[in-house]
């Protein structure tokens, strides 16, 4: 099942809403009010004021040039605009030629880092790769146990220390173990931290330093997980994490509800960080590679 099929039910509500609004607007005279309605729909999808008005401005220009005649045109044009922006960040992760490929998952509290780590592991296992978890969240109560349960279910190795120990030491041991055991992919699951806590960002930098010292080029992927239900603050998260850790990829979790994660349009435009995955459900298989077309389609257009 494709990404669009998976999320279209979740996105149905907005899509329908957007569609109805555009239809409704077009029933009257095709005038400026249509664009206000489109802007509203975009803002309601968490696209933000700036991005929304920019998109609408572009549509308006197309309309003035006589390129838009009916409802279908408007929807298609909007879809194309969004897809065009997102296309640039549609870059799947590639582990070719790197071993052990090291992924550091980071993000604020409760976005779904651990679940995403487990789902990512599953995609590699399905491709015959050997995966190892590093339980670097030594802070949150039972975070190590949580990852251990996943390790057991997936049948992958896990390196863990005691709660409260140094996460950088866990990362170091994980890499050592991976090299010794012929592991293909190491996934280091870190503790959630708000991007505004500078001491915790420093801790993260230390983990990164230790990892790169042990294995040159590592971490090969610094994967920031963002929560699709978040609003404009997600942009702030990307900005701050990127500034201090140079994020190389994004995963958008929890896209199976009614939230649209419209903020990724702004993120794609301004940070150009590849979006690797989207999380679309609670099951292990509910992680899909990001597709610009599907995302734009699901947001705006019907099938």
């Amino acid at each position, binding site marked *: 099942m494709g990404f669009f099929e998976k999320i279209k039910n979740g996105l149905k509500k907005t899509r329908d809403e957007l569609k109805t609004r555009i239809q409704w607007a077009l029933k009257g005279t095709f005038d400026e009010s249509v664009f206000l309605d489109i802007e509203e729909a975009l803002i309601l999808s*968490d696209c933000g004021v700036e991005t929304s008005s920019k998109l609408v401005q572009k549509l308006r220009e197309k309309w003035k040039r006589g390129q838009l005649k009916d409802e279908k045109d408007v929807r298609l044009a909007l879809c194309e605009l969004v897809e065009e922006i997102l296309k640039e960040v549609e870059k799947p992760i590639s582990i070719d030629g790197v071993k052990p490929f090291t992924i550091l998952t980071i993000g604020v509290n409760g976005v779904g880092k651990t679940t995403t780590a487990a789902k990512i592991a599953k995609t590699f296992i399905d491709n015959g790769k050997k995966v190892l978890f590093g339980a670097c969240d030594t802070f949150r109560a039972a975070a190590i146990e949580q990852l251990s349960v996943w390790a057991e279910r997936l049948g992958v190795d896990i390196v863990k220390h005691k709660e409260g120990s140094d996460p950088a030491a866990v990362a170091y041991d994980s890499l050592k173990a991976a090299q010794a055991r012929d592991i293909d992919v190491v996934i280091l699951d870190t503790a959630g931290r708000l991007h505004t806590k500078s001491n915790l960002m420093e801790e993260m930098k230390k983990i990164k330093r230790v990892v790169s010292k042990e294995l040159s080029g590592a971490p090969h992927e610094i994967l920031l997980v963002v929560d699709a239900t978040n609003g404009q603050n997600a942009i702030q998260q990307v900005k701050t994490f990127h500034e201090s850790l140079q994020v190389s990829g994004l995963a958008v979790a929890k896209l199976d509800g009614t939230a649209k994660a419209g903020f990724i349009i702004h993120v794609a435009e301004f940070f150009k960080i590849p979006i690797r995955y989207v999380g679309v459900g609670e099951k292990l298989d509910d992680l899909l590679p990001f597709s610009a077309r599907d995302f734009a389609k699901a947001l705006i257009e019907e099938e």
Partner: protein
Amino acid sequence: MISVMFERLQERFEEIFKKLKGQGKLTEDNIKDSLRDVRIALLEADVNYRVVKDFLERVKERAIGQGVLTSITPGQLFVKIVYDELRDLLGSSNVPLMLTGSPPHSIMLIGLQGSGKTTTAGKLAIFLRKKGKRPLLVSTDVRRPAAIEQLKKIAAQIDVPFYIPTDKDTPLSICSGSKEYAIRNYNDVLVVDTAGRLHVDEDLLNELIEQKGILSPSETLLVLDGMTGQDAVNIAKTFEERVGVTGFVLTKLDGDARGGAALSIKATVGKPIKFIGTGEKLDALEQFHPERIASRILGMGDVISLVEKAKEAIEEKKAKELEKKLLKDEFTLEDFREQLKQIKKLGSMESILGMIPGFSKFKTVIDFQEAEKEFKKMEAIINSMTKKERLYPQIIDGSRRQRIAKGSGTTVQDVNELLRKYSQLKKLVKKISKGQFKGFRPSIFMR
């Protein structure tokens, strides 16, 4: 960025008003641009689009026709109107937990995955214990790996009893089992942490309703991530309609999220926000104060103070009483001290004096820090007096002066100086009461 937003708002407004010099009123026309700025500020803070729309309508209604006072600028007045409306919408005060009926009471925590339910459960247990309750922590989250283990660990950390389920337990059997356990062990409040679930997951919503049926909780709190975007409205509405909630807990507000979701859910569902989570540590749970969130959403902390500070800090009644006393010539050192205290409550001298019409001119010539130090010293001196001395200053002789100086860590000269100021003020008061200062009312000075 936050204060920038506000500054822009105010600056812009001042600009518009410069053009409209001579107009002492807010009109639809002259607030148009400012309304647009407020709209952007609210949307950037993640307040729901439709909530913003309604909100701006109300602000418009409230603002149009308002006369501008001489003491504040039109920009300040407009900002105050926006802020007042926001605060009123968020609820006029904190609504406490309601534990009704006979114990054991239950508090259920529900919400999406990752909103912070488990951490909040631990924080609530501490809160309840501080209130003299004997909470029992319960987790019905059999879905997320190690979720029960997580709460168990938190319970051990804070030394609160935890109901340990077996592997065979279901969420429903945990509900009934924990209730019996609480009765046997004299725990009067169950704090029940449930599995995270999406508001579109019908099966899991039904399971929640069943749990609620067994627990018949006094409080069903929806725990919502403070960073939630436009969808907050859908989430809150669905949980309210399907499961029923008594209030909200807004979490992760220790970051830089503006917390617009607070306004969205309050406006849509109408239930109070009871707590906010402000950190990962287990004591980081605060009762909700609408004013604080209102400032946060608008991003204008300091500004409101200009208009609000005076009003909040000086209780009108005290000022009135003082005025009466002054006029009756009953102004004692005790009153003098009260006045100093009030001034201190207001914050910096500079800001209060700035609020007094016409005083801003002197801002540059007065050394405010020096003045504040002086005020502190004066208060210390009065504090070192006996009650009798404060009421009848004439009895303060040489040896009393020495004692007061010692007690307040000052010199006899300082004490003399204070007594001199006091008698000057008293004389001034007499003149006022005789009508020599036409139109001057001490309460004006106080405000």
